[in-house]
């Protein structure tokens, strides 16, 4: 559920990040493609962790690369996660300032979201998992209710014809979501060391991919079938626009706040996971496994990046541009675990039955 909630954070921003190419109509298919590729990516993390059961990526890095290179690896990992956390915090703040609370300064929202995420991150994986278990079903159920409420405005013919522009734009369209969907690999990294049955993680990866793929695909199809691909191209946050249009018995109106609440919950989980990783990596690199300074410093750094790294909404949306987002996302979810897996295979490193890293090469 942690992976599902993490990926469902894309629901509100999915439409704007896939409308950069002409085949907007096929965005619902691209969601499946992105989900499928992200599952394959997650299997890299899974394969690596199977060689080091019960070990976190921070420890694995030191065991595989050696103490000093391992610490450098962890510093780099922490920086990368901070970058993504800052991006996510600012994206959250921009969506809220643009669509919900225009008079609130962005910095206030940045700080508040970082504080909320820090609270989750301090609780650790157990708390984030439990939070996801609470938020996830509510998100899914509420989303399905919203789909039901918008059904009078759905025109399925707007989804047709499928593949009008051929497969290429659809594949291109799937590229950016991979950056977000691929975070399931990151989730696997954090959760798998604590599983009683690590091999069950493969089933969890596939289930999470299937559920979130279905949800995002359904969300995309709903948007296209309701507004049409051309209108979506012009809307910044079409999901909120659709929710705003829902009206039940002339009383239940403006339910975009419900959508925003759910999104806020999922963003909390997503950012908390990133902060948790950044804190863990930095703690391991500095050998400081307890205390407040590192969590506070990491959170302040994330807020600083969220505040100073972007000038406005356009900058935020530009950070989703495949040219910017994909290389860094792939670095996090493919290159870094791939590097560790490769080196551990070459050097024959894996966890011995005694629990110490051993060379079986």
């Amino acid at each position: 559920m942690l992976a599902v909630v993490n990926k469902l954070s894309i629901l509100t921003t999915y439409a704007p990040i896939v409308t950069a190419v002409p085949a907007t109509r096929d965005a619902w298919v691209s969601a499946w493609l992105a989900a499928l590729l992200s599952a394959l990516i997650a299997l890299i993390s899974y394969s690596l962790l199977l060689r080091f059961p019960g070990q976190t990526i921070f420890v694995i890095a030191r065991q595989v690369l050696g103490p000093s290179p391992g610490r450098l690896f962890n510093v780099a990992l922490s920086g990368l996660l901070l970058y993504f956390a800052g991006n996510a915090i600012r994206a959250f703040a921009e969506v809220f300032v643009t669509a919900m609370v225009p008079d609130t300064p962005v910095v206030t929202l940045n700080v508040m979201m970082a504080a909320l995420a820090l609270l989750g991150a301090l609780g650790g994986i157990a708390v984030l998992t439990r939070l996801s278990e609470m938020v996830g079903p509510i998100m899914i159920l509420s989303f399905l209710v919203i789909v039901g409420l918008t059904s009078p405005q759905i025109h399925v013919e707007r989804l047709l014809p499928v593949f009008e522009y051929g497969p290429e734009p659809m594949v291109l369209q799937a590229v950016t979501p991979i950056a977000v969907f691929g975070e399931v690999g990151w989730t696997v990294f954090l959760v798998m060391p604590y599983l009683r049955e690590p091999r069950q993680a493969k089933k969890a990866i596939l289930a999470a991919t299937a559920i979130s793929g279905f949800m995002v695909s359904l969300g995309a199809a709903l948007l296209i079938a309701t507004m049409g691909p051309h209108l979506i191209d012009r809307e910044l946050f079409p999901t909120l626009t659709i929710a705003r249009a829902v009206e039940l018995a002339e009383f239940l109106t403006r339910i975009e706040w419900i959508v925003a609440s759910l999104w806020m919950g999922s963003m909390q989980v997503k950012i908390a996971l990133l902060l948790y990783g950044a804190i863990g990596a930095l703690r391991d690199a500095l050998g400081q496994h307890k205390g407040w300074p590192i969590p506070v410093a990491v959170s302040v750094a994330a807020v600083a990046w969220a505040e100073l790294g972007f000038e406005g909404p356009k900058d935020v949306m530009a950070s989703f541009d495949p040219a910017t987002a994909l290389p860094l996302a792939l670095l996090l979810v493919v290159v870094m675990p791939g590097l560790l897996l490769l080196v551990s295979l070459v050097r024959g490193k894996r966890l011995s039955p005694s629990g110490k890293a051993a060379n079986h090469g």
Partner: protein
Amino acid sequence: MADWKVPGSPEGDALAPGLSANLAEIQRRFGESDDLIVRRLTLGIPSHPEAAVVYLQGAVNEDAIARHIIQPLTLDAAVLAGEAIADPLTGADPLQRHLVSIADSQKATRWSELLKFMPMGSAVLLIDGIAEALLLRVRRDLDRAISEPESASVVRGPREGFIEHLQSNIALVRRRIRTSDLRVRSLLVGERTQTRVAMLYLHGVAEEGIVQEVHRRLSAIKIDGVLESGYIEEQIQDHPYSIFPTVRHNERVDIVLGNILEGRVAILTDGTPFALIVPATFPSLLQVSEDYYERWPIGTFARWVRYGATTISLTLTAFYVAIISFNQELVPIGLLLRLVGNRTGLPFPALVEALALEAAFEVLREAGLRLPRPIGQAVSIVGVLVLGEAAVRAGVVGPIMIIVVAASALSSFAIPDYSLVNSFRIARIGVIILAGTFGLFGLMWGVLFVVTHMISLRSFGVPYMSPLAPTSGRALMRDGLGRMLWPSVGHRPFRVTQDRKRQETGQ
């Protein structure tokens, strides 16, 4: 008596063999206290050894001392002399075996033991020429009648509540759970009050790790005195800085019984009717015994009402403040016009109005609680009806705000656990301030903060929000959000017990 934990005695506090020396020392140790009674007597055996019974008046039953200690030692001893009792005496053992008819007695050779047990209601028998004493438990118990607890009444169910006497409370539990698996482990807590505390649990049902942990935490308590179980609660809880209770307290016998049967540990404290129950989870704090006494649809519905009331208690006032202050677009136009009409001319912003009413409500509640009941009720009525009406007429607060604050307060009283009511009162004020500052965004942030905090709590290793999070669908269905038919509730809450099955399904 032998069950009580006796801390290690300091070196050099052994009793002297001479009676006079011992009596002088005991007088010195108690500082010539007026309630220290020394009754010197001559044992009715040929060697006529001198002896003394020493006790603290008021702590002991003097009638029992006369009948079961002094009479046998002075009169009956003559009959037994030369038969069962060796003459001359070499120790207190023969007197303990053949003369003293007190069930709970033990030998003591150290002053630290005497000083520990005398204030608890033990009389001490000192014998000249013998460096040991007999501690004879003749405590005077100040019982009161068992009555229905005022803090937790029910429409349907037993009317038994615990009282201040520990042994009576243990008896109330023993009387209803008639199995040898019911275990009682006792210890003394409080350096000066030496309060007796008893852990009750079902062996084989309660999780052994939890039992050990409870005992460890109780043993580790360092405190001057324990006047109520709250002193213990604060020292054994997992999260002392959280506003949410992670230890449940209740004075209803049936609730404690139910929790023991589910595998939890009850902690009874001498001097208070409030039992502590651990581990405590948030869903368990929203359950009452009547959920099980009524038919399952009624019990389930009542639980839903309580969950709804808890949500309303936390969010309703904040939601109203948010939509009045920032998010008017959420309100249908007809309702909005009515709301605006009611607020026309009001001098304060909604946030100030809400906080002022909340403060007034808290003051009224405190006043109503502390005053004698008839006056307290009068104060509440004056506060609610007269002040509220006058405030609206004076145009200081809006009538809808009064309705909203009153509805929040009423909802909070649907929460069965008083500690949890207090927790949500504090959380509500925080959420109102956030909503008044940031609108619905602040409300959402506040709710997420509270939920995340609650999720991060544990009670004796058990996640506070289980079975909501971590989610167990079956547990939620059977005996969580709702309650199914009894055969379906045949499983105890997991994480709490080592024996999940209560009974064979269908029995």
